[in-house]
């Protein structure tokens, strides 16, 4: 397992290099550059612009620019944000905990609900409860997150006033106090539910169908023939098989944690990486944009690795070597 993991991580390096070339090229191909995002090109001396461009190395051959960027990048220097005038790494580091908190809460909600609803519906299919859960899930599957987000804000924040509509914490509170943490939970709950709605719905249906399918398997008949009680057959024999696919989704989910939050964070003006990404696009803050894109790519590869490792852990038929 350890050997496998190390090999997979080493295998990620060439992938990340390829991705970095793509990211760099895309940034180069996009209209404008960081400089024109920073100054007002219409009101600046053209000679000054030309000098600055030269100084910033924009006129060097492309491969030199790439090498300079990537070697800085590998030393943790992602460049300076043209918008905030501070290192991109600092901005990202500041936003990261919010996104991780949102992502983990969302995963927790997703898996708890999917597990509870899916195992109930799978054990009692075609009953009233199952139909109710199905109807609930179809809503979750049909509503895009930006619509669900807007509705959730409108109903639960504006009309009912149960949750705040934006931000990640009440800024008047002192950091580290109990009420500070309660406020963070309060702020994260609504976006976390909206962010997890789609996966909750699809994992619930997936688990339900998988349980129903496993109920008909030969090994279930064997367990019955041994005199194993029905509830134990569901709890151990069937459940242990049906969680295999759902657990491996977890790895993929970790990979998608940040990119999945782009829309939700923006709707809830939740100060995380996703929101930063979208605002950096409109502000042409290329250093930040490139760093986040690299981060997303790395997370996706990493998530796939986690998925494979989890698969190897929960399914004895899979050998990682």
């Amino acid at each position, binding site marked *: 397992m350890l050997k496998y993991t190390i090999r997979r991580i080493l295998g990620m390096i060439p992938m990340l290099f390829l991705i970095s070339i793509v990211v760099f090229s895309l940034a180069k191909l996009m209209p404008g550059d960081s400089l024109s995002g920073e100054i007002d090109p219409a009101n600046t001396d053209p000679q000054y612009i030309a000098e600055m461009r030269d100084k910033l190395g924009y006129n060097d051959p492309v491969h030199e620019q790439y090498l300079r960027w990537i070697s800085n990048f590998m030393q943790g220097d992602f460049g300076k944000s043209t918008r905030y005038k501070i290192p991109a790494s600092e901005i990202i580091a500041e936003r990261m905990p919010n996104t991780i908190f949102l992502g983990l809460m969302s995963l927790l909600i997703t898996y708890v609900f999917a597990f509870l609803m899916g195992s109930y519906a799978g054990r009692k299919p075609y009953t009233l409860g199952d139909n109710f859960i199905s109807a609930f899930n179809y809503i979750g599957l049909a509503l895009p997150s930006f619509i669900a987000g807007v509705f959730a804000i409108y109903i639960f924040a504006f009309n009912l006033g149960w949750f705040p509509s934006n931000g990640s914490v009440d800024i008047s509170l002192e950091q580290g106090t109990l009420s500070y943490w309660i406020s963070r939970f309060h702020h994260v709950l609504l976006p976390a539910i909206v962010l997890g709605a789609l996966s909750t719905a699809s994992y619930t249906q997936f688990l339900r169908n998988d349980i129903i399918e496993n109920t*008909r*398997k*030969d*090994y279930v*008949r*064997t*367990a*019955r*023939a*041994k*005199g*194993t*009680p*029905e509830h134990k057959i569901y709890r151990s*024999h069937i459940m*242990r*098989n049906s969680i*295999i696919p759902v657990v491996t989704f977890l790895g993929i989910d970790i990979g998608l944690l940040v990119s999945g939050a782009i829309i939700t964070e923006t709707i809830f003006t939740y100060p995380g990486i996703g929101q930063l990404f979208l605002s950096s696009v409109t502000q042409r803050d290329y250093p930040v944009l490139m760093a986040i894109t690299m981060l997303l790519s790395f997370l996706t590869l990493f998530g796939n690795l986690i998925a494979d490792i989890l698969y190897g852990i*929960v*399914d*004895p*038929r899979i050998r990682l070597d």
Partner: protein
Amino acid sequence: MSNLVHKEASLLEVKNLETAFSIDGAYYNAVDKVSFSIKPGQIVGVVGESGCGKSVLSLSIMQLLPKGNGEIRSGEITFEGVQLNQLSDTEMNRIRGRDISMIFQEPMTSLNPVFTIGYQLQEVLFNHMKISKGDARQKSIALLKSVGISRPEKLVDEYPHQLSGGMRQRVMIAMAIACQPKLLIADEPTTALDVTVQAQILELLKTIQEVNDMSIILITHDLGVIAEMCDEVLVMYAGRIIERSDAESLFYKPMHPYTELLLGAIPKMDEEAGMLSSIEGMVPSLKNMPETGCRFALRCPKVKPECSAVTPLLEEVEEGHSVSCILYETSMPRKGVKP
């Protein structure tokens, strides 16, 4: 031996069993008025082509019919004086695996892929006896040894996919005999295995039967197996028993034309076409069963015009040998008695 055995009370008695499946809202009998009994220590063979209702019969005894569409419609299944088809699922769970066990045709899929062999063996022990974890492990190792597995200490911690089909069937047998049941139902236990492995598994079953003195219902479509193993034979066709006899006289003197054809098919066993396919035609599906008359009439080489009108009775022709075919006087329904 057979004389002594006949005097004892039956271990299992099946009376007029009708098991049906609902298809598009109507019920169709897959097992039709089947009656037979088994005495302690007896091996009873059930033979017939595939689709004749052998598996449905055994699942009926185990009360393991697929929930929802399979159902015992009438009849009695009495095991040691207890009527199984009246028991609740919880009560039946105390009998399954302890007094009656079953092994299945498909060793490749009958074990749970995500649990170790040891876990699955110990499960049946924990279901039926108070036993510590350590003892259960020791006992499962001993059980594996008793079914001829050479490295049981290692195997308990392995998973089903690491074993061959023959090994898995041995594990299934170990599970089935773990609580020393009085009756073992073996539904085509060797059909999915290689020929050499088949012989070993049958040999094993026979040894276990002698050591534990249990009864076996051995289901097969291979009459060769019957000849080697069984005291008594039930020949099934399309959900009915059409001939019942002790094994010897069935081979010396088959009575039903279907049995004759089955026996005629034995030498062709190794042909690729399969064992019993040399009888022309196929077992009718549940929806296409003839309503009256002999169900074999359509394929019978000795068919007479009355065959599709008169439903033959299963009656004794000689001592211990019954047949259901109107070629025999005894099978003609008596006047005033509804068939």
